[in-house]
C-alpha cells in the first residue's frame, strides 16, 4: 500500500512535466506487470489473480502501443475491436486506476479549472483531467455509446477534439424494436468502415463470430458462477469485483477472459460454504472507502456477493448475424430504457444470490443511478430485504464523509447481524 502511495507521490510531483509523469506511469505499470506475475495476491483464488494481471496488462498495453489502442466506454461493442486486434482502453477503469495511486484530486482540479462542471461524475472528471494534464497517450480513434450515462458523449467529444483523434458515437435509442435494431446495426457498419480505414485492416466476420462464440461461452460460465453465490464464499474484495468489469464488458470475447471465467467457476465450486452474511451491492461499491474496506474486503463475516453491473446482459448473442446480435445486446442492456428493466435484473440477482442485505452507494454525479433510488427503496421494502443507501464518491475521496458513513454502515450491519 505504501509503495503505491509513494508511487502516486512521485507522479503528483511531476504532474507539471507531463512527459516525465507519463514515463513514470508507464514504468510503474511495467513493474506492476512483472511484480504481479512474481508475487500474485495470495489472499484471493487463482482466477482473481489472473484477472488482476489481465487488467494491469491492458493498461500497460495501451501505454506501450497507443497507436494500436482505442479509448472506449464500458458499454462499447469491443467485440469488433478484439476481432480486429485493437486494444481497448476502458476509460472508467483508467480513472479508477489513477485514483488507486491517489492522484485523482489534482486531475479533478485540472478538469474543473478547464470549465468542466464540478458536479460531473468523477469517473469522467478524472479522465478529462488526465487529458488536460497530458497524462494520456493519443489513441488512433475512440468510440462511445450514448446509452445509460450522459457523461460519455461529452467526455469523449471533448478529449477527441483536444487530442485530435477521430471519434465514433453510437447513438442507442431508448426502446427495443425492429427499426432501432436496424438503426444501431447501420451505425455499427459505419463504425467498422471508419475503423478499417483508420487502422488499415479489414474486419474478418469469421473472427468476429469466434469472439462472439467465446462471449457466449463466457456468459454461460458466468451464469453458473451466479448459481453458486448464494451458498459459497469466495475470498474477494471490492477491487476484484470491479476488476470483473473488464471480463464482463470490454474484454468479453477474448481468449483469456474465457479462461478467467472457467477458473472462476472452478474456484467458486471449490470454495467453502458461506458462514457469514452476504451483502450485495448496487451500482459501484466504493473500493477506496475506509469503512467499506474494513467491513467487506476478504471478510468472512460479511461476504461480498457481487454487484449488478457485472450482469447487465446475460443473453446469448446470435451468431447468424453478429452485428444484429450486437445491436440487440446494446438495446436490451438492463440499464438502457426504463428503470423497470434494472429492477427486473436486480430481482433476478436477489433470487440467485439471496443476500442478507443490499447496499447502494450513491455515487456523486451519477444521475442515472441516483434518480431511481426511490423505486429501489420501494422494491426492497416490498421484498423485505434490508437496504441501505449511502452518499459519497467512489473515486473522489474528498467527497466522502468517513464519520457519517461509519455510523450508518455500522448501524445497518448491526441490523443484519441480528436478523
Amino acid at each position, binding site marked *: 500500500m505504501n509503495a503505491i502511495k509513494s508511487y502516486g507521490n512521485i507522479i503528483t510531483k511531476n504532474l507539471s512535466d507531463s512527459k516525465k509523469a507519463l514515463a513514470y506511469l508507464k514504468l510503474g505499470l511495467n513493474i506492476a506487470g512483472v511484480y504481479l506475475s512474481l508475487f500474485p495476491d495470495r489472499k484471493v483464488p487463482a482466477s482473481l489473480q489472473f484477472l488482476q494481471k489481465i487488467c494491469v496488462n491492458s493498461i500497460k498495453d495501451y501505454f506501450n502501443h497507443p497507436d494500436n489502442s482505442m479509448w472506449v466506454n464500458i458499454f462499447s461493442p469491443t467485440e469488433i475491436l478484439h476481432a480486429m486486434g485493437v486494444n481497448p482502453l476502458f476509460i472508467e477503469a483508467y480513472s479508477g486506476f489513477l485514483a488507486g495511486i491517489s492522484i485523482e484530486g489534482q486531475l479533478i482540479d485540472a478538469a474543473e479549472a*478547464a*470549465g*468542466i*462542471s464540478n*458536479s*460531473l*461524475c468523477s469517473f469522467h472528471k478524472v479522465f478529462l483531467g488526465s487529458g488536460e494534464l497530458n497524462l494520456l497517450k493519443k489513441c488512433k480513434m475512440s468510440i462511445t455509446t*450514448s446509452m*445509460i*450515462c*450522459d*457523461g460519455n*458523449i*461529452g*467526455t469523449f*467529444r*471533448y478529449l477527441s*477534439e483536444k487530442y485530435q483523434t477521430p471519434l465514433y*458515437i453510437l*447513438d442507442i*435509442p*431508448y*426502446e427495443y424494436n425492429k*427499426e*432501432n435494431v436496424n*438503426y444501431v446495426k*447501420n451505425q455499427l457498419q459505419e463504425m467498422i468502415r471508419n475503423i478499417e480505414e483508420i487502422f488499415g485492416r479489414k474486419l474478418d466476420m469469421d473472427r468476429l463470430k469466434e469472439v462472439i462464440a467465446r462471449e457466449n461461452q463466457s456468459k454461460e460460465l458466468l451464469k453458473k458462477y451466479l448459481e453458486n453465490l448464494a451458498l459459497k464464499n469466495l475470498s474477494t474484495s471490492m477491487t476484484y469485483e470491479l476488476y470483473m468489469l473488464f471480463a464482463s464488458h470490454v474484454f468479453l470475447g477474448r481468449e483469456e477472459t474465457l479462461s478467467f471465467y472457467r477458473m472462476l467457476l472452478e474456484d467458486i465450486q471449490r470454495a467453502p460454504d458461506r458462514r457469514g452474511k452476504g451483502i450485495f451491492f448496487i451500482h459501484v461499491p466504493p473500493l477506496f472507502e475506509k469503512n467499506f474496506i474494513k467491513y467487506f474486503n476478504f471478510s468472512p463475516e460479511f461476504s461480498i456477493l457481487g454487484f449488478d453491473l457485472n450482469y447487465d446482459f446475460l443473453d446469448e448473442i446470435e451468431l447468424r448475424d453478429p452485428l444484429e446480435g450486437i445491436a440487440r445486446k446494446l438495446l436490451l442492456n438492463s440499464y438502457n430504457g*426504463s*428503470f*423497470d428493466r434494472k429492477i427486473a435484473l436486480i430481482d433476478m440477482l436477489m433470487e440467485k444470490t439471496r443476500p442478507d442485505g443490499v447496499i447502494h452507494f*450513491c455515487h*456523486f*454525479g451519477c*444521475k*442515472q443511478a*441516483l*434518480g*431511481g*433510488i*426511490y*423505486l429501489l427503496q420501494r422494491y426492497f421494502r416490498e421484498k423485505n430485504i434490508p437496504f441501505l443507501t449511502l*452518499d459519497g464518491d467512489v473515486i473522489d475521496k474528498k467527497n466522502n*464523509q468517513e*464519520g*457519517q458513513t461509519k*455510523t450508518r454502515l455500522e448501524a445497518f450491519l448491526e441490523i443484519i447481524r441480528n436478523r
Partner: protein
Amino acid sequence: MIGYVCKYTPVELLEAFGEETVKIEPQVKPHESAHDFTHVNMCSYMKGALEQILEQNLKEIVLVNCCDSIRRLNDILKNKVDFLHIIDLPRKINNETDRLFYRQIELFAKAYGEYKGTRLKTGRLKEIIQSRRKEQIPVEKSLVIMGARFEKNIIKRLEETYGIKTINLTCSGNNRLSDTITENNVLFSYAVALLRSFPCMRMVSDRRAFLQSLPVKGIIYNTIKFCDFYSFEYANLKKTVNTPILKVETDYTDSESGQLMNRIDAFMEMLETKSVSRKTRGKRFFAGIDSGSTSTNAVIIDAEGQIMGYSNVPTGAKAHDSAQKAYNLALKNAGLTKEDISFTVATGYGRISLPFANKITTEISCHGKGAYFLDRKVRTIIDIGGQDSKVIRLDEKGNVLDFAMNDKCSAGTGRFLDFMAKAMEISLEEMSQVILNYHKDIVITSMCTVFAESEVISLIAHNTEVKDIIRGLNRSVATRAVSLLNRIKHTEKYMMTGGVAKNKGVVYEIEQKIGAKLLIPSDPQITGALGAAIFAMESSD
C-alpha cells in the same frame, strides 16, 4: 392540460387535439416532495419539475428522452399521472433519424389519441403549422442564450432593461419550425422540421459553426448543477470562441436573486464598453489584496473596473506568503504578470506585512468600496468571514458612514459553523441548507464555540433531528449578525459578503429577522480585495 419539458415536443400536434399545453417551468421554492421520490443530487430542473407536477396535480405529461434525469423522471411518474409518454429523440440528424423520429411522433399521436378517445386531425395540424411563422433571426447584434434552460421572465427582463434582442438556444427557446411544410405527408414533414430546428446543447453536434451564422454580441451560458451536457460545450467555447461569454448558474430555487442580475449587469456593461479582445497593449491594471485571518484574496481589475482575475487561498502561518500566493494566482488567472500591474493596494489583518503593496487601506473602506461597486444601491453591508464579522453603513455616494465589528472571538463566524459541522459530522454544504420544515425550534444558547459544541453533542445524543440542529445553529449566527446590525442605523439595500454569505441557511435567517432581502455577490469573499483594487485604480489617477 398536458405538461411538457422540452422544445422538441410536438406542441402543435397537441394543439391539433384541441389540448392546452403548458411548458413546465418550476417556480422558486424548495423541492420538498421531490426529495421524497428521488435523490437530492439530481439536477434542479428535474426536481423542480417533479415538485410542480405533484403539487399542481398535472395529470398528463409528455417527456422527451433528453437525459438521465428526464428518463428517471419518467420512471418516477409512472402511476402518479394519468397519461405519461416519453418520446425518444435521436442524437444524430440524418435521413434515417428523420424516419425514426417521425415514428416516435406517430406513436405519440396514437397513444394520446387513444387516451383521449379521438384521432389526430392532420388537416387541423396543417392549419396550425401554417399559421405559425418561422421566427426570424434578428439582424442586429444580439445576446445569445445558451446552455441549460433559462427562465423566460429573466430573458424578458434582459430585453427590456437593455433594449437588446436575444436569441434563446436553450430548452426554453421556441425557435422550432425550421422549414415550412412542403411535403404531402404533414406529420412526416412536421417531425423532420422539429428534429431539425435549432439544435440544443444535448444534440450531438458542434454548434460553433452554427453560432457563426448568428449576429452574436455576447453569450450568456446558463448552467444547472448536476446537468451533464453544458460544461463541455462551455469549456470548448471558452477556449475557442472570441466572443464575450458569461457563465451563470441558475437552479430553479433562487434564480431571481440579485446575484444573477448583478452579474448580468456587469456583463452588459462590459459588452458596451469593451472590445472583443480582452487584452490590449498598453492597458493598465490594478491589484487589490485582502489578507484576512482565514483566507487571503486578490483581485486584478483593468482601468474600466472589469475584473480580470481573482483568487482565494487559505491564510497560512505567514500572512506574507499567502498574500504572495494569492497575488500570483490572481495574476495567472488574469493572464498577466506583475509587470502589468500599475498599482497595488493591500487591506486586511496582514496588510502591514505586505512589502509589495503601494498603499494600505482599512478593510472597512475596502469592503464599502467593493460592495458599492457591485451595486450602487447598497447602503448596509454585513460581512461575516472566517473569524470576524462586521457591519458597515454607506451613504448614497458609497462613503462609509458608520460601522461595527464583533469582539475578538469566533462566535457567530465561519469558523464557528465549521466547528459545528465537524462536531455533527456533516459537510458544509449540508450546513448551509434553508430549513423550512423543522420539527423542533432549537435555540443554541451558548455563543462560545466550546460550549456550543457540547450543546450540539448533547442534542445529538437526545436524538434531535440534524436538520433542526442545523437550523438552530444557522439562526444563532443570524441572531449574532442582527445584533451587530442593530448597533448601527441600517437601511436597504443590504449586501452580505464574506464566506458565510454562501451559507443559504444563515442568509435566509437574517432575511427573516430583518424583513428584507440580502444581495449576495457571486463570490462574496473577494469583496474586500475588489474594493482594494478599485482604490488602487483611483489612487493611480
